[in-house]
């Protein structure tokens, strides 16, 4: 029997497939379709300090093999999350990675401080790359200094209690240098990739279709970008654990991300089309790994980087 367990920093998970932030709400909605105990973890929708309405509708446009969304971090705020959503997940024996998002460096630190004493959290995902904020200049992950400052603040507030996973954007010139910066500032791992900034124009209204004008592209259309990003970062920093995501909708997709260097894989948009996608992909992945002779998932992590074997002809 293959060992499917994995680790992200000091956090151990029995299973390698996770939900993706913003694609599972806070877990309750999916419980009718998948057994939350049997997946790596529920990565919650990014929670902010205060309750937030998000952006007006239309918030979504389907595109070829993808979709563009502009939700704008609608959510109940951290206090309500800790009082209602987190206890439900813990009661239902789900592993939990809490995703946090802030408008300022200080807000991230405040959120981290509130999570420090909350029971039942396996890791914290620091979402510094949500494309759906009012000011593109405030996408922390597009700026090396800003992203370092956020992670530094979170690290101080958490005090090493929980592994920190920094979620990065692929919309940067030099992803490796951003990744290196957040690792140097105390992140234990990386989540790659957030959605790709995109736009759809409605040819009837002849204006941007989304109320927020721009949105994040997700789904199978972006998977090759995710594979590239994970491969590049793993190549530069092979010891840094990566939670991979971006258009994964089958076991084959998940295996590609793992071979590129991901220790775990989040499934996001695929759950919109198929709410049992996370468990289906996990089962398919196990089969594919076994068929290739792996005895553990960790053997396959970054396997695409192996040095070419000498020719035996």
């Amino acid at each position, binding site marked *: 029997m293959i060992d499917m367990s994995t680790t992200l920093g000091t956090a151990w998970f029995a299973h390698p497939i996770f939900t993706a932030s913003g694609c599972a709400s806070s877990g309750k909605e999916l419980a009718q*379709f998948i057994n939350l105990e049997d997946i790596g973890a529920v990565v919650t929708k990014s929670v902010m300090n205060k309750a937030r*309405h*998000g952006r007006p509708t239309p918030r979504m446009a389907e595109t070829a093999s993808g979709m563009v969304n502009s*939700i704008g971090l609608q959510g109940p705020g951290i206090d309500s999350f800790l009082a209602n959503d987190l206890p439900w997940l813990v009661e239902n024996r789900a592993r939990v990675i809490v995703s946090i998002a802030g408008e300022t460096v200080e807000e991230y630190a405040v959120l981290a401080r509130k999570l420090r004493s909350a029971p039942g959290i396996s890791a914290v995902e620091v979402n510094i790359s949500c494309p759906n904020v009012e000011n593109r200049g405030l996408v922390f992950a597009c700026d090396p200094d800003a992203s370092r400052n956020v992670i530094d603040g979170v690290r101080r507030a958490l005090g090493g209690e929980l592994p920190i996973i920094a979620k990065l954007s692929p919309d940067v010139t030099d992803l490796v240098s951003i990744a290196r910066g957040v690792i140097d500032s105390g992140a234990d791992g990386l989540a790659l990739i957030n959605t790709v900034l995109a736009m759809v124009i409605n040819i009837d209204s002849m204006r941007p279709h989304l109320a927020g004008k721009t949105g994040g592209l997700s789904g199978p259309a972006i998977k090759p970008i995710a594979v590239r990003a994970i491969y590049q970062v793993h190549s530069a920093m092979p010891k840094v654990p990566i939670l991979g995501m971006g258009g994964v909708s089958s076991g084959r997709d998940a295996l590609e991300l793992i071979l590129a260097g991901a220790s775990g894989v989040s499934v996001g948009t695929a*759950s919109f089309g198929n*709410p049992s996608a996370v468990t289906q992909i996990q089962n398919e992945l196990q089969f594919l790994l076994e068929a290739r002779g792996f005895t553990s998932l960790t053997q396959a992590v970054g396997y695409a980087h192996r040095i070419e074997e000498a020719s035996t002809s």
Partner: protein
Amino acid sequence: MSAINKFAEQIRPIVVSNKRVGQYHQIILNVGDVVTNCRPGNFIAINVGGESTRMILRRAFAISRVSTSGVLGGTMELIVAPHGQGSRWLCSLQEGAEIDAITPLGSAFGIPTSPVNALLVGGGYGSAPLFGLAEVLKSRGCRVDMYLGASTGSKIYAPMEGKRAVNTLRIYTEDGSMGEIGRVTAPIAQLIAEGAVDVIYSCGPMGMLSAISSIVKGSDVVHQCAVEESMACGVGICMTCVIPVADEFGVTTMKRSCIDGPVMDGSLVQWNLVGKIPEVTP
């Protein structure tokens, strides 16, 4: 376990029949035992396009009617307008085709515990779920009047057998090509003034639902409407189908029309804020 999506099942029904009815398609699915949990107002989310499709999101359709008595077991009727790529694919399916579906989803129309005077208002093919609702209301001893409206006659969906469940049926078209000329909302104010209606059930375009809510305002008439907002998932995880709804304390938040709807209390929906966001943070 959570109460959200409590009765939803992911099933693989067979298309039993697919007929063109005017501008719409009547599609019957062999869904099995899941019909016992389907209520008027609930919807079904269907994967479209087949295995190699570029369309990654499910399409949501109101359940028109269900039947438990057929020789095939439980069947479900959908009325589909072949407008977009996904619905055109569904309308192109042959009998015997197997599809991937999740149902029942969403809230249902509330059924009164004692007989009332009910007015059912449908816009375009929004009338589809109202015929199943009419049958349930009739079986509870309610008086059921139905007003259907559309821009033109070919967009009215009013099957012969459906008419049996209603006491009266009036049709309104904007171009006068069928029934009376004008909008379906025009006669409602007078009905309310006469005290001839206790509950209004509506399904159709958001503009029609909003207009009915304004007419009902200030009266004792209850208005249950099935809202329409584009969805990506149908199960409450994507947050795209939100509309502004007030709670009992008057605080407005963005509610998901898939799990908090599609049937909502029309007096709580903040129609003037649809497509906007409330200014005050909740």
